[in-house]
């Protein structure tokens, strides 16, 4: 549980630092006389279609993605934990069958379709709604792990001995929380690059936060549309996304290794 707290707080701290740095460098200032200017000492990564400092926008966008991914993490973790525990507790009975059915359903079909249709209802999906929607369709993978762990623990001698000692069921399962939730959390950290990618893809499709707010997908889309006239847009934005996802992937591998060694 300590590790989970450390990871969540570091993500929050990182996102706050990045948004602050991005804000200091002024991502909103429009310079109409410097539209699409290449990298220069004044604008280290160049400017976009409205003359805004690309470096500032990218840093701010990365900070926003991390902040939003926290929302996704919490929703997905909560839903995964509750459904996984219910499924494991009522193993082989009705609630378990319903939850397993939902898990297989969400794992066979690509979640992007459901997320896009969920967001199409809202006229102006803000950042929190987008990440909430992503979290609503990402929980099946960790839920499977929670369910497997709960079933394993339910049939273990630990439960048997606690029951024999007279502990009520609620106390038994309260003690299981750290044991079952940790694999789900690790799996979610593994899916963190996927979450950030889905969000970038959503703003790529046009469903992201609205224009003044920088978002990675939108910058990438602009970069690709102007690939020949302003190559630095596409190169810097997609490299930022690649760098972000790779570093998260490497860190999550370290976390997984640490868990296996513990």
């Amino acid at each position, binding site marked *: 549980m300590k590790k989970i707290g450390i990871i969540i707080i570091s993500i929050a701290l990182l996102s706050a630092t990045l948004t602050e740095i991005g804000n200091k460098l002024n991502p909103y200032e429009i310079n109409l006389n410097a539209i699409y200017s290449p990298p220069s000492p004044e604008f280290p990564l160049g400017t976009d279609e409205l003359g805004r400092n690309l470096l500032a926008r990218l840093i701010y966008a990365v900070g926003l993605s991390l902040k939003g991914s926290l929302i996704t993490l919490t929703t997905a973790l909560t839903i995964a934990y509750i459904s996984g525990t219910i499924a494991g507790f009522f193993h082989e009975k009705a609630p378990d069958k319903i939850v397993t*059915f*939902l898990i*297989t*359903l969400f794992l*066979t*079909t*690509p979640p*992007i*379709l*459901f997320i*896009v*249709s*969920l*967001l*199409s*209802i809202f*006229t102006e999906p803000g950042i929190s709604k987008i990440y909430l929607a992503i979290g609503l369709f990402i929980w099946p993978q960790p839920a499977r792990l929670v369910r497997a762990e709960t079933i394993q623990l339910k049939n273990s001698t630990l439960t048997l001995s606690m029951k024999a000692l007279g502990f009520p069921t609620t106390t038994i399962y309260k003690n299981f929380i750290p044991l079952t939730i940790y694999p789900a959390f690790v799996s979610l950290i593994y899916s963190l*690059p*996927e979450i950030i*990618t889905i969000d*970038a*893809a959503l703003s*790529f*499709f*046009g*469903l992201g936060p609205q224009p003044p707010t920088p978002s990675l997908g939108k910058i*990438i*889309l602009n*970069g*690709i549309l102007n*690939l020949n006239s302003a*190559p630095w847009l*596409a*190169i810097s934005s*997609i*490299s930022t*996304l*690649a760098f972000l*996802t*790779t570093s998260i*992937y*490497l860190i999550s591998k370290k976390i997984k290794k640490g868990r296996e060694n513990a």
Partner: protein
Amino acid sequence: MKKILINTINGLIQLIAVFTFTFILFNIAPGNPARIILGPSAPESAVKELEKELNLDKPLHIQFITELSSIFKLNFGKSLQLEKPVIKLVLNRAKLTFTLVIIALALAISISYILNLLGYLYPQIKPALNISKAGVALPAFVLSILSAVFISFAFPQLPMHYAPENPKTLILPSLIISLYPTAMMTEITLTKINQNMQSTLFKSTLALGISKLRAFHNVLLETSLVSIIAGWINILTVAFFSTLVIEIIFSIPGIGPLLVTATLQKDFPLLKGIVILNSAFFIFINMIADSIYKFIDPRL
């Protein structure tokens, strides 16, 4: 036989669940779907007319049953912005999208087979195959855009736009889409083959004097086949997602741009049709895969 029947019924129930999801989303949840489609400034009469057209004024259970029965007759209604039947639109576009996906997946499976065969016959190559693990690190979306940008700079003479009269322009997009699936398939097969090479079955096969190639195909591949097929199904979803993105970059008239316009114009019938038809495809493929597992490994 019984298992196949159970799988089919399971698939049908999954399809009905997807339909229920879109039904709840587009008919119940927002409050007044017609108002959402037309926007807050439209006159009340227009909203009432749209409601009548979409059958939204009837009681919910009648809506549910009429829609479900019309879906089984393959009637998804008409698109609001394009005025054409939804199913014709989606199937037309789906032809292109699924051509890309299938080419990418076929490439993935053949290249990973060849690479693993070479790695098995010439063990010196194996360390080089670990590059595939790096390819899996980047998500498919990032990898495809990164390669598209890189290729357009490295080879500026290659066409970056799809032209309907020249099918050769489809080669580059399908290659780009196949990068992530190939890396993933190679990695899955490599891990499984390395695992199975330690087994006594394989060692005894070689000790009995059976040729290396035969041992590879009959022992290693067969024992890894279940994981390979499971991985292949998994990659299908990922490849579909990256195809949607690549279509937008290369201006290919597939499901990607259709989805984008449907969402931006709030074309609910079209969205419903896209979601249900695509989910039906994936559910169908999973149904077939689940039935195949029983033939490959009778223990399952």
